[in-house]
Structure formats: C-alpha cells, structure tokens
C-alpha cells in the first residue's frame, strides 16, 4: 500500500530537522544524508508499527539514532578511538558543513561522547522535551538531564566560554549569533 498522504506529509516535514540531527551527530553531510535515507526506508518498510497520532518526528529520530549508534559501534571496532582519533576524522574535512562559521562549534561537538552529544542536540536544538529525548534514547529522564548538563559543561570548556566573556578567538561565531541565528 502507498503511504497515507498524511503519513507521507509528516515524514517529509520531519526531514529537515532529521537531517540537522544526523549532521550534528555525524559531522558529515554525506553520511548524514545516507543516514536519513536509510531511516526513511526503514520507516516506510515498517510503517505498520507506527501508531497514528503519535509523534512521527520522534519515531524517525529514534530510528536514525539507533542506526547511527550501530554504525558508530561498528566503526569504533574498526578504528581504535580511545583517544578520540575517530572524532578527529569527523572534523578533518572543511567541506562537511557549508558554513565555516560553525567550524569551531562542530569540532567541539564532535569531541563529546556520543550519548552526551545526542542528548544535547535532542533537547537543546531539536525541540524535544526531556521525556521525549529519554524515549528516543531509551533511557531514564534523569540520565538525559545529566548527559545534557555534562555536554554543556564540556562544550563550554572546549569553546572557552567563560562567565561574561565572549567566545575565545573565534569572532565569526559571534558574528553569526549577533546576526540572528534563530528563525
């Protein structure tokens, strides 16, 4: 059966933030788009297990997150990453995300442990509640909260955001912010 138009519409409207999630997780646009594609394929193949009326976006995020996790685990076995060398490879290509302004931020994000990174992105940027994020990551709400807190602390150290000071040397990040990042 073809997709219900409403289901199809819900899927498509989740794609932009799904991509942003995938890019934030992987740091790489090509891998991210492959992840999104794989997610959509799995979702369509398993559309019967989606309960109408529930949050399509959260469902898709869950699928993508699990795909990323299993891929990450696989790669991690292949590439020893005890010292974050794999994270370095994520950030070594300048073309990974079009905007140079976010270079420093992306590097810092890539240095977070995956569980902290995903928690922070889900709660801090994707608009999910702590409860929804806990559902997506299949863990307790308190776990999400502490991961988000640790992620924020670590990021602020990496970016040298300190008290009332502005970001360290990266003036371009400030320029982006003052230009108004929010829609």
């Amino acid at each position, binding site marked *: 059966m073809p997709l219900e138009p409403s289901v*199809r519409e819900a899927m498509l409207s989740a794609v*932009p933030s799904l991509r*942003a999630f995938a890019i934030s997780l992987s740091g790489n646009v090509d891998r991210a788009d492959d992840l999104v*594609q794989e997610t959509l394929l799995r979702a369509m193949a398993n559309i019967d297990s989606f309960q109408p009326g529930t949050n399509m976006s959260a469902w898709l995020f869950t699928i993508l997150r699990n795909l990323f996790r299993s891929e990450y685990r696989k790669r991690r076995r292949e590439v020893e990453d005890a010292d974050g060398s794999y994270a370095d490879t994520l950030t070594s290509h300048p073309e990974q995300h079009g905007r140079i302004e976010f270079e420093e931020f992306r590097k810092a994000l890539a240095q977070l442990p995956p569980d902290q990174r995903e928690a922070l992105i889900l709660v*801090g*940027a994707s608009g999910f509640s702590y409860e929804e994020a806990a559902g997506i990551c299949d863990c307790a709400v308190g776990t999400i909260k502490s991961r988000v807190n640790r992620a924020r602390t670590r990021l602020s150290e990496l970016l040298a955001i300190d008290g009332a000071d502005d970001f360290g040397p990266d003036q371009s990040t400030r320029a982006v912010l003052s230009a108004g*990042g929010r829609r």
Partner: protein
Amino acid sequence: MKEQKPLTSGPGDQVQGRAGSTEDNGARGGGGRPQGSGSVEQMPVRPSPTMHNEIHPRKRRGRLGRDVQSKLGKTLQAYFDDVVKEGVPERFRLLLQQFDDRQDKGSS
C-alpha cells in the same frame, strides 16, 4: 566589552560591597576578594540573577552560569537551524515517491 576593573579600592568604595546588591556580586567575577570595588561603570551588561553561584570561577562539575548556557544554546540552535533551513532535499521526495510507485505496482 568587559572592562577590567581596577583592584584598588578606597575605604569609601566599600559602601556597596557586602551589603549585597546582586549586580555588585555579579560584577566581581574573580570571586571572593573581600575588598570590594563597587564603582558603577563596572557592572556587567547583564547582571547575573544569582548572587552566590556566579562570583566563583566556574567549577569543573558545577552548574554553568545562565549567560554561558544561553550562549551555548543559541550557538547550538543556530548550527542546527542552519541545516533545517535547507528544507527537504529532492532526493528524499523522490525516495518516498519511488516507494509509493513500487507499492502501487506491487498491489495492482
């Protein structure tokens, strides 16, 4: 933007010190020095709403100040929204369309 505050302070300057104006405590930043320098132009742009947490340098595992959280949050959101703005790439519309087309063929 942040001005370096002079460390010198005459006795007269202490009037505002321990009396506990929020702005004054927030402005001290370096934390903990008993001699206050309370002159007006040293107030931070945005006074910190919490009196006690903010005057110490950030602890390793403590809570972050609100301004730090706010900056982080805005950057993260901007980074995220930068991708969201790109909308739905054509390949994903096609993907769903192809799925439907296949399903149509399969069921007829």
